[in-house]
């Protein structure tokens, strides 16, 4: 089977690893991690451009290496080729190998910020625009000293509610550089680190075309992705041309 995988760059190493070993002929396209900082409609628009481009080529399917991702995939349309998307809320579930495992971990571990190779080394975000990513010097330059102090406090207050990095090791990393980087950042913030083993199997099934309805939604041509707000997470909704 010949498929196009469109992936968030946060899973760059995982997807490259899996594509190289797949029985399928897999073409890859990666989009910036910063898309998930955009408004969901803007993220969807960027993904749609990529899907539209892939739809002009001769693929049997387009596999999205994305989760629902803050509704960034809501509204994404399958054109002439089926779109495949995992039934996941966030990419962390994909790295953990299953939505159930993610949910259990999430519910028993509050205040956790997740790290993986991609979350360490793939850093281009849109947060410079929104102000979240600005450090004190940048804020002072833009807003003046007094305003900057106020903004810094407001924009970083959320950090007080986080207290731990959970580093997900997928077993494909070249060495411990990403873990080291996570531990250094944790030391700077006074946070704990928990290291857990990731699980490539869900992403492997995505790349290999092993798409069971329990784990994947296959969106037929002429349909779009919609969130369901239940355990299915996503469903395919037929495009209707609104009359008048």
């Amino acid at each position, binding site marked *: 089977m010949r498929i196009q995988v469109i992936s968030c760059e946060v899973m760059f190493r995982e997807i490259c690893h899996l594509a190289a070993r797949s029985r399928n002929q897999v073409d890859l396209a990666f989009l910036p991690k910063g898309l998930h900082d955009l408004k969901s409609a803007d993220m969807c628009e960027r993904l749609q451009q990529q899907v539209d481009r892939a739809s002009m080529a001769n693929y049997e399917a387009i596999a999205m290496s994305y989760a629902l991702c803050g509704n960034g995939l809501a509204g994404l349309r399958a054109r002439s080729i089926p779109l495949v998307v995992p039934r996941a809320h966030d990419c962390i579930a994909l790295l953990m190998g299953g939505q159930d495992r993610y949910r259990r971990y999430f519910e028993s571990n509050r205040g956790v910020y997740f790290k993986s190779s991609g979350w360490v080394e793939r850093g281009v975000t849109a947060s410079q625009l929104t102000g979240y990513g*600005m450090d004190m010097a940048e804020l002072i330059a833009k807003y003046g000293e007094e305003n900057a102090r106020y903004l810094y406090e407001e924009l970083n207050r959320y950090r007080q509610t986080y207290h731990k990095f959970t580093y997900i090791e997928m077993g494909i990393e070249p060495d411990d550089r990403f873990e080291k980087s996570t531990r250094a950042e944790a030391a700077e913030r006074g946070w704990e680190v928990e290291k857990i083993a990731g699980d490539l199997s869900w992403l492997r099934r995505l790349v290999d075309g092993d798409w069971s309805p329990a784990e994947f939604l296959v969106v037929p041509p002429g349909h779009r992705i919609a969130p369901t*707000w239940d355990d299915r997470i996503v469903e395919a909704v037929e495009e209707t041309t609104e009359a008048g």
Partner: protein
Amino acid sequence: MGRQRMCDPTLLHDAILTGDHKTAIAVTKEAIAAQIDAMELVSRYMVPAMDEVGRRFECEEFFVPELLLSARAMKGALELLRPLLAAAGAASAGRVVIGTVKGDLHDIGKNIVGAMLEGGGFEVIDLGADVAPETFVDAVRQHRPQLVCLSALLTVTMPAMKETIEALDRAGVRQSVKVLVGGAPVSAEFARKIGADGSGENAAVAVALARRVLAP
């Protein structure tokens, strides 16, 4: 000039628009000394300034920092005017209980909406982040707000919004409040589906939305 001192209230409009907290306070003090009508100051200069802030945010001329600075300037001016507004018989725009729902620790959006609502003349009771449905119920019983605002950033915690509305329902207090939901992944369709009274696409629309759902 008589006993009135020089004061140009358009400076207050501009100070709020540019997020200049110090000037907003200074001009408000001058306006009070010049006995300019507090209600007129709010309705003719301050509210239009915040409306303009919202408009610029919508078209991405302003971002979250600008929103925060303008809300702070608005709040600073309102605090000075509050005794005068109360003396003139101006009612608060309403009382709001706000929080991020259970499981979700992301509170920046909620904090901004809280600041915008305060800037818009609402009394805001902030329950913080990761707030259980029962805590919302207790707060509604205790504070008797007109409005409950629920926030979530993660799609995985959005079902907790539905659970919170159901808890308000079970406790028999759902009819006494309007419920608004917000957060990056929250849509109008979702709000309808879970029985909320409304949703806002961003913090800039919070005040207008709150006023609209509370309008008789």
